[in-house]
């Protein structure tokens, strides 16, 4: 009761704000809420639109059959996109396999090993790689990388011919392998940049603890830096994977455009995004529906990858963070 009196009699002590000034905060909050909701609405709208547009194809072919049956003949209007889905997964996996180790190595070099004077120029250089348009990567891959690599790819394929899919086959210029390689280069900057930021958050304490034990620089990295930043690096890789899955233009240049189920990674193939990018212009109504269905599949695939990634990141983060949360309880015990 006392308190109520004081605040109502505010005229004496507490300066009054005008109604307009008092509106600023709620208005700001509402504006942000509206924008956030707008974004969610946009995604939902997008999803629904894709479903509606893809519906004719999907109901004609059957949803499961569309995604998991192996027969894609675009001209003949047979739309069973399993080969494309596999192509997307194979090229993305290759991109991660090749790109992530290099990205982590680059990040470690920049943040832990290179002379301080070189740090900023190198950082800028790596980040600039992200600014290269994907079509340029595509052209470079098609005109330069693919022909140059054909011999090497054949050599590797022959040596590894005892491994199914990875080895064997007749190396074409454009192929899953080249597409994976180009994608690896394309995801490098983002994976590297985020890994670098994560590595920079490793407390000096831990690094010094390792060094003071007589760790070499590499052992210090293995002992203190990598375990601490594992979750963040996993997250960075998943962002890279997202980019690799969705990349259309560059892949459409270097994958070959042969929509048969993969036999060997050095042979030509196709992916969901590349097919969409290549075929949309000349598509008739049926084909257009099929391409939109491909888009929907891509969308779902990305969502799944994201959820899986989040699960793994959350799990490894928990493993790192949970114990300190328990500390106050234990601290009474000396």
């Amino acid at each position: 009761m006392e308190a109520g009196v004081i605040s109502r009699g505010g005229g004496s002590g507490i300066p009054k704000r005008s109604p307009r000034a008092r509106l600023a905060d709620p208005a700001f909050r509402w504006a942000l809420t509206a924008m956030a909701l707008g974004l969610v609405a946009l995604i939902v709208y997008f999803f629904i639109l894709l479903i509606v547009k893809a519906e004719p194809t999907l109901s004609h072919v059957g949803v499961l059959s569309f995604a998991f049956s192996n027969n894609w003949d675009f001209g003949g209007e047979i739309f069973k996109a399993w080969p494309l889905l596999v192509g997307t997964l194979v090229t993305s996996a290759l991109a991660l396999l090749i790109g992530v180790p290099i990205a982590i190595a680059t990040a470690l070099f920049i943040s832990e090993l290179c002379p301080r004077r070189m740090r900023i120029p190198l950082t800028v250089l790596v980040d600039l790689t992200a600014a290269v348009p994907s079509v340029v990567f595509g052209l470079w891959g098609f005109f330069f990388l693919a022909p140059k690599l054909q011999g090497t790819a054949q050599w590797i394929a022959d040596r590894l011919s005892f491994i199914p899919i990875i080895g064997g086959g007749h190396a074409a210029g454009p192929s899953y392998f080249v597409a994976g390689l180009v994608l690896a280069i394309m995801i490098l900057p983002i994976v590297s940049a985020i890994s670098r930021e994560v590595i920079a958050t490793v407390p000096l304490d831990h690094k010094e603890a390792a060094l003071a034990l007589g760790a070499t620089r590499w052992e210090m990295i293995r002992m203190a830096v990598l375990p601490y930043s594992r979750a963040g690096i996993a997250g960075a890789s998943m962002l890279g994977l997202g980019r690799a899955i969705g990349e259309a233009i560059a892949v459409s240049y270097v994958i070959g455009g042969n929509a048969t189920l993969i036999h060997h990674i050095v042979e030509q193939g196709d992916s969901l995004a590349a097919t969409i990018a290549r075929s949309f212009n000349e598509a008739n109504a049926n084909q257009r529906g099929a391409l939109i269905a491909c888009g929907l599949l891509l969308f779902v695939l990305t969502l799944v990858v994201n959820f899986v990634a989040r699960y793994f990141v959350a799990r490894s983060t928990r493993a790192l963070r949970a114990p300190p949360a328990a500390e106050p309880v234990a601290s009474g015990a000396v």
Partner: protein
Amino acid sequence: MNGIPRRSDQGEEALPETAAAERQQNSPWTPSSATPIAATRSRAGDSREAPSQGRAVVLADLNAYYGKAHAIKGVGLDYAANQVTAMIGPSGCGKSTLVRCINRMHEEIPGAYTTGSIMLDDQDIYGENVDVVAVRRAVGMVFQKPNPFPTMSIFDNVAAGLRLTGGRRGGKRENIKDRVERSLRGAGLWEEVKDRLSEPGIGLSGGQQQRLCIARTIAVEPEVILMDEPCSALDPIATLKVEELIDELKTRYTIVIVTHNMQQAARVADTTAFMLAGELVEVGPTERIFTKPSDSRTEDYVSGKFG
């Protein structure tokens, strides 16, 4: 890797023999040049209890810099073997920098460097061809804030140093297990953690974490242990435990402890050195420094007139 790891029991020695021999030519940290103490020890040593003994450290005209800032100015100081020496002085006087020079951690800071010499017995740790990694294995360090590796279990934290290339002596799991137990006992932590060795090290209390860090340091059997304000993040009871531990550890190691806390210096140290603005003002038996200091600045500091 170096002369020091060979101090252990015979069974573990087989493997690094060749590696040590290879290094012999280019590193002073070898059995041949490290002779006196290393040799006596491995002869005298019974195989279980590490027959350890600290080594003397002598600083001569030591200067340390952070870029252009001159943080340590021509310090000469003897740390006697198997004694506890406390470094006291106001904040920023360079006492932490000084001890970080003794295991060459100072140079890890970008732009930081030192001049002068630090002798560990008869070897200059800043000499040419000295392996920094070997120096740090001989001169262990405990930091101000307990810093167990957050992703590692209690066991793995203590074993961390043993699993480094320089610490692998036969590397058998049993050996590591024994060494971990011995180190945890040495740090007075075994009874508290023996049933939960696989739990994360950062689940322990602050005081336990600091003793875990001490266990991790003594697991690699250094000769000298540097402690940079090891109790400043701990409560009084945890501090007491660490101080008791320091008293036990000095029978086997030479200990240099930086402290802000003059009572602590009085409690644990045989010798106390007072620093001011990068210079060593006075060093002497702890009791004399606190009762009859010869320099008026020391007297002002220990009597609480400044700092």
